[in-house]
């Protein structure tokens, strides 16, 4: 199908999708949670993609690669914009430390487990690629999203310390994973280039961070005085596109660049209240388009190796979140005890996990990343299905205790 019609189909889907997304009046069944987080549009993309009706064919998808990158930059910006100093300061520093150590444990645990397992499941894959996949899975399972937690919140009889701690951790947790993605892309360039790896990596890290910071400052300069809503929209779109475009141009992570732009701007500006409605009005349709395109990119496979990997990644994500909590709680002297089961609140990676997986796939266009994307999407969807029930089961008794 002609790319233009496919684009039209996407706009229409975005329109219909944004009408369905985030409807709160429905009863919250697992299926409705798939709607709520938008993940159902991945299935729609799968249906429209190469393995389905082929409306979004490989050729069309190549044409839409810029749109995917823009979507990733946008998601990064949305996430980064929430990391405002004023918000973070409301919580004790130990919350941040907990988030960091939990990420670190999760990452290392998954890397160890999967490095071992991948050698047996995919013995023919070169070992550097297996290590790369293990790191990528480690970063993926360490990401979490607050969307489901917020959605479940209305069903929780009492929202206490555990709920607010879980919300904080899932709100900021993705920062580490996205930064990890940037480091991976900086130190492990594709295609490989000459020169000492550490120097190159440090250079790319600095560039990926400085450029969006500069753009964030520019954004602030442009919106410092009285600024009309039209101006604001053009600057917002333009700078997010520019930042993610620059990232793609140098094969860096648009998700990270967008995030740093968002963090910089939200901490400089005083007009957050004017930006949020703009972001929210464009968020839903853009998100739906992105998810449909990602679904179309998905090369769905159901073989023993893939199933084994899905199981392992799910297990390592759960274990990585569960195991360190009591120890970390004691080490950081938390006022409430952190039982193992509290870690089950962080299984959902949501949209940010999907964005991470596709970002990695675009950065490393090779068969192994097709497999990575497929496994990641399956893991994310399964996590979304089980998370709402698990969160209620865990948080209800814990918050009742406090």
């Amino acid at each position, binding site marked *: 199908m002609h790319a*233009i019609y496919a684009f039209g189909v996407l706009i*229409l889907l975005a*329109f219909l999708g944004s009408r369905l997304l985030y409807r709160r009046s429905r009863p919250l069944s697992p299926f409705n949670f798939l709607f709520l987080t938008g993940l159902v549009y991945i299935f729609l993309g799968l249906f429209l993609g190469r393995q389905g009706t082929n409306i979004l064919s490989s050729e069309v998808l190549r044409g839409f690669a810029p749109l995917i990158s823009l979507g990733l930059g946008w998601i990064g910006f949305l996430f980064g914009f929430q990391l405002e100093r004023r918000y973070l300061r409301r919580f004790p520093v130990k919350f941040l430390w907990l988030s960091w150590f939990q990420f670190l444990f999760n990452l290392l645990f998954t890397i160890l487990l999967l490095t071992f397992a991948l050698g047996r499941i995919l013995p023919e894959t070169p070992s550097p690629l297996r290590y790369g996949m293990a790191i990528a899975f480690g970063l993926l399972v360490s990401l979490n999203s607050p969307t489901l937690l917020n959605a479940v919140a209305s069903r929780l009889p009492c929202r206490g310390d555990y709920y607010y701690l879980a919300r904080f951790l899932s709100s900021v947790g993705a920062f580490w994973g996205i930064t990890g993605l940037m480091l991976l892309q900086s130190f492990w360039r594709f295609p490989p280039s000459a020169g000492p790896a550490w120097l190159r990596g440090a250079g790319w890290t600095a560039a990926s961070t400085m450029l969006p910071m*500069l753009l964030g400052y520019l954004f602030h300069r442009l919106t410092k005085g009285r600024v009309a809503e039209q101006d604001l929209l053009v600057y917002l779109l333009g700078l997010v596109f520019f930042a993610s475009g620059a990232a793609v141009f140098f094969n860096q992570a648009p998700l990270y660049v967008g995030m740093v732009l968002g963090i910089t701007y939200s901490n400089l500006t005083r007009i957050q209240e004017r930006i949020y409605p703009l972001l929210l009005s464009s968020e839903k*349709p853009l998100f739906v388009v992105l998810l449909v395109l990602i679904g179309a990119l998905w090369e769905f496979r159901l073989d023993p190796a893939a199933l084994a990997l899905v199981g392992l990644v799910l297990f390592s994500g759960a274990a990585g979140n569960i195991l360190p909590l009591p120890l970390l709680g004691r080490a950081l002297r938390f006022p409430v005890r952190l039982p193992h089961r509290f870690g089950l609140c962080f299984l959902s990676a949501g949209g940010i996990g999907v964005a991470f997986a596709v970002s990695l796939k675009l950065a490393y266009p090779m068969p192994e990343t097709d497999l990575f994307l497929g496994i990641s999407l399956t893991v994310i969807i399964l996590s979304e299905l089980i998370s709402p029930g698990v969160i209620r089961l865990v948080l209800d008794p814990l918050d009742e205790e406090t």
Partner: protein
Amino acid sequence: MSLIPMLLLFLLMLLLKSPWTAPLSVPDAGTDLALGFILIFAYLFGKQSARLRLPSITGYLFAGLLCGPFVLGFLNRGDVNHLQLLDGLALSLIALTAGGEMHLDRLRGRFKSIFSLVGFQTLFIVTGFLLLGWIARPLFAPLAGGDAAGLAAFVLLLGTLATATSPSTTIAVITETRARGPFTDLVLSAAVVKDFFVIGFFAFALSVSRSLLSTDSSFDAGFLGHVLEEIGGSVLIGAAVGAGIILYLRYINRELTVFILAIAFFTYQISHDSGFHPLMICLTAGFLVQNLSPHGDCLIQALEKVSTPVYVIFFAISGASLDLHALRAGWLLAVICVLWRALLKFGGTWVGARLAGESDEVQKRGWGGFISQAGVTLGMAVIIEDAFPEWGGSFKALVLALIAINQVIGPIFLQKLLLSFGETRGRSE
């Protein structure tokens, strides 16, 4: 205030696109970067030109020209082609806005003026260009292949294309200056009506030219049926789209931005590919919503919300695609044609406005509102290039040069005119 960020952005782009960074970049991955850059840079450039009392779209065009493949090369031809996907969307939004801005109650009593202006401008320009072709034979003959029939066809088609005025540019300047009043209505309506008229006349001129140049083909009268079918079908589809928009606004009225984008995009592409006139469809739809329902203002507000970024990209990309090589190669003839066209516009407007009983001001200065040329003219030039391969290329190059000049001076003329008529209420005032 926006000068320093603009300069910083420019330097940043210069650095990112410099030869030193080229080995580090991914080939053919610069479209997003180009899109983001041109959106902000052209917008800021437009703001600067507004400070100089020039229309913002002149700034967008200049920014596009400056950053395009012919000057700095921040946007290469591939980027420009990629981003031209947005043209259809922009044109549909522009046409919807134009239709929505045409209030029947304000137009009543002006039909005579509109048709008189369109008719006399067309008459003056087409005959004037035939005359110019005869007077300036040495200049035109080498381009037209040397023989008399080729020359006649060349100048007939050139005159036909010279008649057109860009409704999109007219609407953009009117929207920017928030102009409202009798002269604004007249210019806008005449530009839009003329667009339809020119398309019909172009089909006629094309058929005549084919007859002139071919020994075995006779005059094809069947084209009239095609033109009528195209126009009638477009109006009918436009009515259906308009009814759909009215129903949506009446019963649903949510997520208007995405709805408008979807309508604009689908209407443009489907109608364009099935041989109907997308501009006419959207214009009819907008006109019906404004005049047959109470939702006209709601539609205009929704359009205004989405239109700014789309307009900026559309005009900046138009600027980037202005062919400076063609202008450099044939600038003398292009300047002669631009001046001659302006003179003929003046003559046609003066006679047309006088016979319709318009004011002295409209008779003497109204011509300045009809200078700009863009998409439709370019589209017709492409058709001519295909139809007459022996001289179509040089014809298109000359038309591109004409568009380049007219599209730069046209908005300035129109804005000054709207200001002098006291009908503006916008930023440029």
